């Protein structure tokens, strides 16, 4: 199954038989005071830096979140997306939990975007699936619902099933659905990542669906996060993860993903791996 996402001039494919898609997570003001202040003052300069850093480090797509409290998020998100399209041709992942913001962001985007995200709650699916259809976008769906985040893989799979049925019933092709197997920090629960990996395995086995995930969550609250993130991603890829919203700036993490591409047979004859090595030698 291939999920194809596009900017005005560039196309990217997510799938189990192609290289992993790195969606840079940096354009997000949560916890960044200076960034928030600038955005409130209509200053988008931080975005320029974040785009440049992530493009240079080798991100395949960029996530855009404009969740600044006490602002007009729909207007801000639309403006940021217009701006980013002048800075890069990488396809975008539009990130908000406000439906109006998603709508505004999608309207401002030229191409086929990934929407981040919806849950398996009926009211969220009612609100967001029409946008998926209206803009011919892809949707990232989280297997949690009104009752919270299920901790075990089989419980998550029950909600995945519900989401798949609903997406099918709406007539949306399943290649436009990505599942987020829910990454939680191993710092708060020793079994957390094992459960996530098991969920990935089951989603791939049962549905063959593509997946993406907020990968950096696994290392929250722990020292040396880069090393943990770099260890997690190859494990996840071998369980069927096809893309991640992740640290798209740190070479250690990105290299781990590209190495796993080669080792898992997704980079035939090491073409990408060897070119990256040569480029680095020349730099």
């Amino acid at each position: 199954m291939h999920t194809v996402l596009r900017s005005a001039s560039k196309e990217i494919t997510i799938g189990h038989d192609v290289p992993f898609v790195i969606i840079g997570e940096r354009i997000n003001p949560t916890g960044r005071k200076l960034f928030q202040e600038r955005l409130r003052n209509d200053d988008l300069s931080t975005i320029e830096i974040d785009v440049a850093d992530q493009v240079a480090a080798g991100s395949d797509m960029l996530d855009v979140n404009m969740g600044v409290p006490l602002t007009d998020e729909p207007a801000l998100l639309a403006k940021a997306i217009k701006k980013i399209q002048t800075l890069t041709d990488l396809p975008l992942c539009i990130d908000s939990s406000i439906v109006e913001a998603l709508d505004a962001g999608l309207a401002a985007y030229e191409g086929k975007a990934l929407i981040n995200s919806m849950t398996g709650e009926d009211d969220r699916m009612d609100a967001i699936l029409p946008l998926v259809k209206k803009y011919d976008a892809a949707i990232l769906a989280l297997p949690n619902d009104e009752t919270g985040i299920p901790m075990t893989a089989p419980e998550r799979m029950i909600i995945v099933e519900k989401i798949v049925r609903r997406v099918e019933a709406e007539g949306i092709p399943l290649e436009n659905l990505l599942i987020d197997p829910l990454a939680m920090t191993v710092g708060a629960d020793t079994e957390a990542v094992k459960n996530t990996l098991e969920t990935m395995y089951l989603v791939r086995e049962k549905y063959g669906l593509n997946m993406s995930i907020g990968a950096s969550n696994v290392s929250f609250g722990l020292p040396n996060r880069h090393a943990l993130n770099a260890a997690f991603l190859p494990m996840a890829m071998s369980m069927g993860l096809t893309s991640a919203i992740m640290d798209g700036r740190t070479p250690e993490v990105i290299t781990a993903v590209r190495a796993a591409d080669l080792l898992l047979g997704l980079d035939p004859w090491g073409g990408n791996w060897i070119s990256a090595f040569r480029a680095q030698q020349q730099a």
Partner: protein
Amino acid sequence: MSPDEILKEMYEQTMVGNAPRVLELTKLGLDEGMSPDTILFEALIPSLEEVGARFERGDYFVPEMLIAGRAMSGALDVLRPLLADTGAETVGTFLMGTVKGDVHDIGKNLVNIMLEGAGFQVIDLGVQVAPEKFVEAVKEHQPDVVGMSAFLTTTMPMFKVNIHELSKAGLRDDVIIMVGGAPVTQEYADVVGADGYAADASTAVRKAKELIAIKRGK
């Protein structure tokens, strides 16, 4: 073991999160005739304060804080009924919950640990706490402080909804309302009409004590 040795080891074992040993030492101390007050205020609370200080400095990490909290909770389960018997006054009762629509709980749990470590009685309503649940719990437990946590910009507006519901129920002025969570700011806390905001767990404890002192001083 002498009482001093017990307290010293309890302090150290709480800090490394050795729950079984801390529980053992608590029972041993009580058998030796130590008062629950002494165990709480001379071993457990100082230990958790040190854990909090290390966490704030970046020397301690989330798992270390969680297991230290768990070690203390185990001891508190034994001490709590005895403390009630001796009539020791609690610092205050803190009702805590993550707002409706939000399932994030790590930060909230860290604040709970620090509050318990400082001698608060904490009633944790968990995550996805609906406004009516906050109202019910305030009626039932009559806490000094209601703490609301939100991790998402989209769930933060629930602070305002919760405060409105408490007002409607005539309970707003009976409690101190504190809010917190990654995207929350002092400015936002003011806008929704909360009484207090803190950026991290240690500050939350200081702020809660401060607000209670002001209220009780009235």
